[in-house]
């Protein structure tokens, strides 16, 4: 669960007084201090523009904070040499709000992409990818190109791609934003299943109904600052 600065150092994610500004603009994130323990599932909530996506981008190392400390997998990100960051990124799976699927690859190839670009493609990869496609219900679309898939199918494909590398940390940005309730519930069950297998999950969402149906601890952002709301047990 989320904790204060005194939480243990070996935690999955630890932020200390983190601030972020783009260029010379105002701070979009201010004084963020929290810890996410290994194996937890948290929602990241807040109104549009609260800074959810920026916070996720800090977590998946697409941005560096303008101040404060970020510890990821026990590493101080600011002090980690740039050439070792790819190794940290390989432990993170990201489901982007806009999916970011590559149209020139088939669905199966999109799922295999994280393994292919990090030199981890082997004989078992194809079998594993097909299992994942089955798991997300896309077994009949292995060789379809993303533009041929519906929004929900693309969403599930993005999830399969995010988990193919067996990430320790899964970050999902509005993963149910463009799907109906039935599919949203199905995706949430996928995330919970991953979490049960040991993956730490952070889901950015403003879907109050989903949070009510699948209660977990929340990190709520308000005006770029964090208000931690403990989740209800199921």
């Amino acid at each position: 669960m989320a904790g204060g600065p005194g939480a243990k150092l070996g935690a999955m994610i630890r932020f200390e007084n983190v601030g972020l500004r783009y260029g010379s603009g105002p701070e979009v994130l201010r004084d963020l201090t929290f810890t996410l323990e290994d194996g937890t599932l948290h929602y990241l909530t807040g109104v549009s523009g609260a800074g959810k996506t920026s916070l996720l981008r800090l977590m998946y190392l697409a941005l560096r904070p303008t101040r404060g400390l970020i510890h990821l997998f026990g590493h101080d990100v600011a002090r980690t040499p740039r050439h070792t960051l790819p190794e940290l990124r390989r432990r993170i799976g990201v489901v982007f709000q806009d999916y970011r699927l590559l149209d020139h690859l088939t669905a199966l190839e999109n799922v295999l992409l994280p393994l292919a670009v990090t030199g981890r493609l082997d004989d078992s990869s194809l079998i594993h990818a097909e299992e994942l496609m089955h798991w997300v219900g896309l077994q009949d679309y292995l060789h379809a190109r993303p533009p041929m898939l519906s929004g929900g199918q693309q969403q599930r494909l993005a999830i399969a791609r995010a988990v193919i590398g067996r990430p320790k940390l899964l970050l999902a940005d509005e993963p149910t934003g463009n799907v109906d309730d039935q599919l949203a519930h199905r995706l949430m069950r996928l995330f919970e299943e991953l979490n049960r297998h040991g993956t730490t999950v952070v889901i950015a969402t403003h879907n109050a109904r989903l949070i009510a149906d699948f209660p977990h601890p929340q990190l709520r952002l308000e005006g770029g600052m964090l208000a931690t709301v403990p989740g209800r047990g199921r």
Partner: protein
Amino acid sequence: MRPTLPLLPRQGPGRQRFLLWIIALMAYLAALALMGVFMIGNVISSWQATVGGVATVVVPTPPEGAPAPRVVVDRLLAVEGVTAVRVVPEWELDALLAPWLGEADLEGLPLPQVYEVVLGRADPARVRAALAAVAPDGEITEHQAPIAGLVQMGQSIRAVGVLVVLLVVAAAAGTVVFTTRASLVIHQHIIDLVHMMGATDHRIARPFRERALQMGLAGGLVGVGGALMTLVLVVAMVDTDMVGLSRAAMTGWQWLCVAAIPPAFALVPMATAHVTVLRALSRLP
């Protein structure tokens, strides 16, 4: 499924063909300029070796007698740098005079002694001094001065040719930088994605590198092939002996240099693309 995943989508045939022809044109110009540099250099060397490198020594034969040819030859050969001295035989002198004197009997005419001196790296002033020591009336005629202007002009043309080769290679590299940067912008979403997946900069740069390599090699081969065809056409159309092209014949290592243009046109763009992509990626966190 394909054994490896293509990180970048296939380029459109129009764009690909355009780039290929640009690089082929540059390779064509580079190959022509390089062959020109070599051939002009060979002609200059030939002139210097056959005409400019030889001096003619004429020793009059006064009634009191000229020095023995052996003495003159030995004295001239003693000069540092002189590689050979040949006494021009009388029958050759007769042949040289025949156009003016006809088949007349030249017996009794006081023909001078004539020597051909291959100067090599010898200082002409020292040769002159050595000649004066054994034959004060002897005269030496260098042929270097008359062709010096031609040699200088040839060397200038050769320098321009080298400059053209360097400019063309630089232009090719510049073209690759421009197209690679354009490609980086077009594929920025893919680069950002795989960067976040944990791909290293070198892995991301690979497809850009490979694309530049293939394009450079294909363009280089087409360009050099075209340049060779041009040379063959030129040689077939002119009388090579008349214009002195036979003196320009390229040597083995010079042909190797021309053959190295396609690999060079592959490697320079590849290295350029690699550096361009790495520099762009270094701005990412």
